[in-house]
């Protein structure tokens, strides 16, 4: 097998599963160690630089990092990365002094359309490096879906105000409260670049008989949530049906419980397991006494002369065709009627770009989506960039942030006459953590704790007022304990073959049987013949040659605890524990090299 090139930035980056999985590539173990050391402000700034909205994301992130977390493969559950982020945000104190000041203007003007997470990320990155940024937003506030769609009991307004505030403090030009009707008109204003981050603003419609007749009590989920958020809607019927299985549906049902809905039911077409909502959001909803009924397809809205009385559903079951595709077919059982006073439709969101002219060199595909390069976020009009839900359809905040960073890099390079297609390399460092004999700069003693639950307020209290935050967040002690569950996967095991005397000490001590000294072989063969077979093909084998006996060292990265015992037991220092820090290159000087 080919020896591993550990100098390639991707190799060790992949070992840090959480960081690799994070669209913004936030250095997770780095900030978790800072939290364990009570350096909350430092932890916050590591996050802020990378993901712009740590306080918001610490409560609402879709957490792609957690399913990737190595702890989940070693023990039962991943580290509660998301909620640790919140701890940093909650305890940081005043970080105003650490924030960048408005930069001297470089003369370039950039328009961003929409004031949601993608747009605000572009604005922050570019403002800090001297651009004049103009933000266009239909609502009278900046924040986008963070403000309009996420209910207050999950995300207090003060957190949004603070984190949006850090960006507004960099002095963008704001054009709030007015919808953009023409992209051409914006381009005609002579901006050097335009970023479209307007989200996926249209909720999918329900198309069943009775929908129109009973329209007064049938609401589109995201519109209803926005109306609740702005205080226009303050009550809902006693019996509510929420259609849909995504996170919006979970927000709708839980909001209903707080606005007078005593009997709230979520109804999904598919099975419970296939629902799009995050498992923890489903759990929270059920915890509030909201049943989720699955395999029911809406058939008809029941009404009495336009007055909504309930909904009728067809019972279905999944069937798989020859190609393995799932179809929902009626079971033939009697239809199910569920009485209700209101229906919330949260069955998906769609993009809609009626305001973008089709004759400005901006191509759309057959689904009506703009053609966007996923690396540069550039459309076919070289001055127009897309990001967030507007680019590739509904995703989540952290993807929007990641798109924003990439678009800002593209815009910055373009405005400096450089090719946006050439992407800047990330900044990396690899530094030994050895402090003394068997002493490391990180805590290498592996905590056996199971995942700690985040304390919640009593439902008695939270169900009464939609503005009362449900989660209390970890206190200092719980945060420390949870942080200690982190395996410090960024502290890498680095092997120097020329120092190795092949004494087997590392092989003998490794608690996870990661290390094998063996004859070289093709990867498939090698994976099967290690101390413990390396069955997880998504995880690399670290191979080093140059040993005296002609064998190779093969280390399966899959379940390495990063406990450093190999390095502690190595008599010659052939193993060393080195911290791999990778920071993405954002807009600014660093991204213009090459």
């Amino acid at each position: 097998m080919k020896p591993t090139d550990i100098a390639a930035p991707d190799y060790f980056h992949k070992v840090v599963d959480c960081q690799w999985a994070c669209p913004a590539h936030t250095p997770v173990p780095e900030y978790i160690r800072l939290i364990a050391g009570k350096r909350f402000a430092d932890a916050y700034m590591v996050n802020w630089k990378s993901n712009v909205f740590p306080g918001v994301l610490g409560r609402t992130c879709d957490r792609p990092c957690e399913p990737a977390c190595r702890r989940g493969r070693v023990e039962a559950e991943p580290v509660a990365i998301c909620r640790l982020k919140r701890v940093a945000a909650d305890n940081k104190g005043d970080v105003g002094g650490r924030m960048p000041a408005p930069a001297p203007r470089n003369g370039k003007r950039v328009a961003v359309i929409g004031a949601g997470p993608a747009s605000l990320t572009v604005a922050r990155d570019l403002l800090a490096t001297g651009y004049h940024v103009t933000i266009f937003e239909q609502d009278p506030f900046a924040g986008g879906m963070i403000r309009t769609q996420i209910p207050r009991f999950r995300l207090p307004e003060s957190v949004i105000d603070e984190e949006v505030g850090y960006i507004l403090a960099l002095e963008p030009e704001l054009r709030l409260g007015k919808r953009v009707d023409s992209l051409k008109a914006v381009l005609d204003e002579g901006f050097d670049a335009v970023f479209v981050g307007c989200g996926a603003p249209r909720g999918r419609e329900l198309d069943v008989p009775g929908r129109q007749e009973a329209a007064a009590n049938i609401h589109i989920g995201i519109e209803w949530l926005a109306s609740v958020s702005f205080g226009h809607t303050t009550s809902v019927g006693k019996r509510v049906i929420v259609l849909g299985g995504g996170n919006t549906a979970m927000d709708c049902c839980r909001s209903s419980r707080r606005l007078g809905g005593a009997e709230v039911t979520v109804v999904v077409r598919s099975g419970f397991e296939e629902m799009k909502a995050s498992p923890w959001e489903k759990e929270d909803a059920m915890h509030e006494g909201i049943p989720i009924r699955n395999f029911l397809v809406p058939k008809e809205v029941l009404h009495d002369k336009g007055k909504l009385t309930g909904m009728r559903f067809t019972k279905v079951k999944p069937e798989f065709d020859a190609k393995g595709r799932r179809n929902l077919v009626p079971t033939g059982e009697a239809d199910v009627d569920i009485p209700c006073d209101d229906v919330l439709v949260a069955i998906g969101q769609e993009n809609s770009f009626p305001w973008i002219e089709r004759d400005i060199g901006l191509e759309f595909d057959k689904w009506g989506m703009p053609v966007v390069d996923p690396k540069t976020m550039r459309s076919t009009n070289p001055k127009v960039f897309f990001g967030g839900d507007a680019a590739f359809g509904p995703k989540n905040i952290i993807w929007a942030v990641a798109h924003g960073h990439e678009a800002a890099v593209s815009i910055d390079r373009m405005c400096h006459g450089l090719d946006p297609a050439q992407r800047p390399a990330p900044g990396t460092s690899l530094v030994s953590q050895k402090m003394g004999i068997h002493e490391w700069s990180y805590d290498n003693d592996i905590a056996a704790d199971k995942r700690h639950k985040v304390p919640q307020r009593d439902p008695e209290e939270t169900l009464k007022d939609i503005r009362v935050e449900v989660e209390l967040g970890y206190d200092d002690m719980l945060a420390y304990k949870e942080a200690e569950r982190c395996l410090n996967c960024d502290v890498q095991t680095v092997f120097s073959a020329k120092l190795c005397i092949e004494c087997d000490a590392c092989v003998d001590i490794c608690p996870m049987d990661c290390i094998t000294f063996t004859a070289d072989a093709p990867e498939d063969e090698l994976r099967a013949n290690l101390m413990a077979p390396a069955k997880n093909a998504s995880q690399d084998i670290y191979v080093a040659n140059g040993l005296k006996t002609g064998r190779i060292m093969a280390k399966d990265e899959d379940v390495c605890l990063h406990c450093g015992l190999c390095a502690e037991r190595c008599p010659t220092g052939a193993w060393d524990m080195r911290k791999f820090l990778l920071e993405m290159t954002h807009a600014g000087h660093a991204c213009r090299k090459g």
Partner: protein
Amino acid sequence: MTYIAKPKFRHPSLPTNALGFTRRDYEGTVSTLCAGCGHDSISAAIIQACFELSLPPHRIAKLSGIGCSSKTPTYFLGASHGFNSVHGRMPSVLTGANLANRELVYLGVSGDGDSASIGLGQFAHAIRRGVNMLYIVENNGVYGLTKGQFSATSDRGSKSKKGVVNTDEPIDLVGMALQLGATFVGRSFSGDKAQLVPLIKAGLLHGGAAFIDCISPCVAFNNHEGSTRSFDYVRAHNEAVNRLDVIPARAEITADYAPGETVDVRQHDGSVIRLKKVAADYDTSDRVGALTYLQRRQEAGEIVTGLLYLDEEPVDLHQSLKTAEKPLNALSDAELCPGAGELAKFNASLR
């Protein structure tokens, strides 16, 4: 040494044995020996061997004397019986324990100081009595705990870390064990687990006095240029006469070697030792031949390893002494104290 305990987490696909244990269940506490010590590899080989044989840990007794090697039983088989004896006196304690309870598996762990110097006589007599045990000497040819003096097994002409040349003849424990009637004799190297683990397994299953001389480099005091116990020296001069597989009793014996390449030796308990010959003319059943061969190869500067001698029908101390079948702790009062009549009869038989 290492300050943190070895984490309890283990590889999710780690195999279990017939008892449902993983290899990790045969471990002891974390080693306090120097990093890289050959002894730790021998501990790991013992763990692997006991795991593969599915030995119930509570049916094993591990005994040792004093020294780096004799510290190691703490680092393996944490759920077994253990006895740390006076320096060089492990063989006597082991003999006594074995006489009292023949049902346990006895593992004596010693070093070159413990067995070739202060305990030489003890070593000799336990072997010649045929105590049913596996006696492992972790032989590093140096006094590590006292910082690097030559031991009784250091080769003549080898250099200490400080550059002093050894002028004394070494004691060859393998040669002694052969002469003294050990019925299983092997030599191996801590850096070659593929050879060592099956050798330990075969030794544990052997029904008589089994002896393994295991060369174990001392990384702190005997792993330098001029040493004859360094990793590099042993690797360069290691001449294996055979490789072996141990097939426990009742396991299906499959033939995956061409005839003539391997020899199967059936042990008393029904297990089979399958020898893959490396030196074609080497005969493990020829004790005198083994002695001659070893001395010839030693003269040529080679370190002969592998299973060197095996008596398929060993006679152990219990058979020689015609002791009771049951362990002493399992004998009833009536058996232990058969009454005045039996005593009188016995006395009469001696008159």
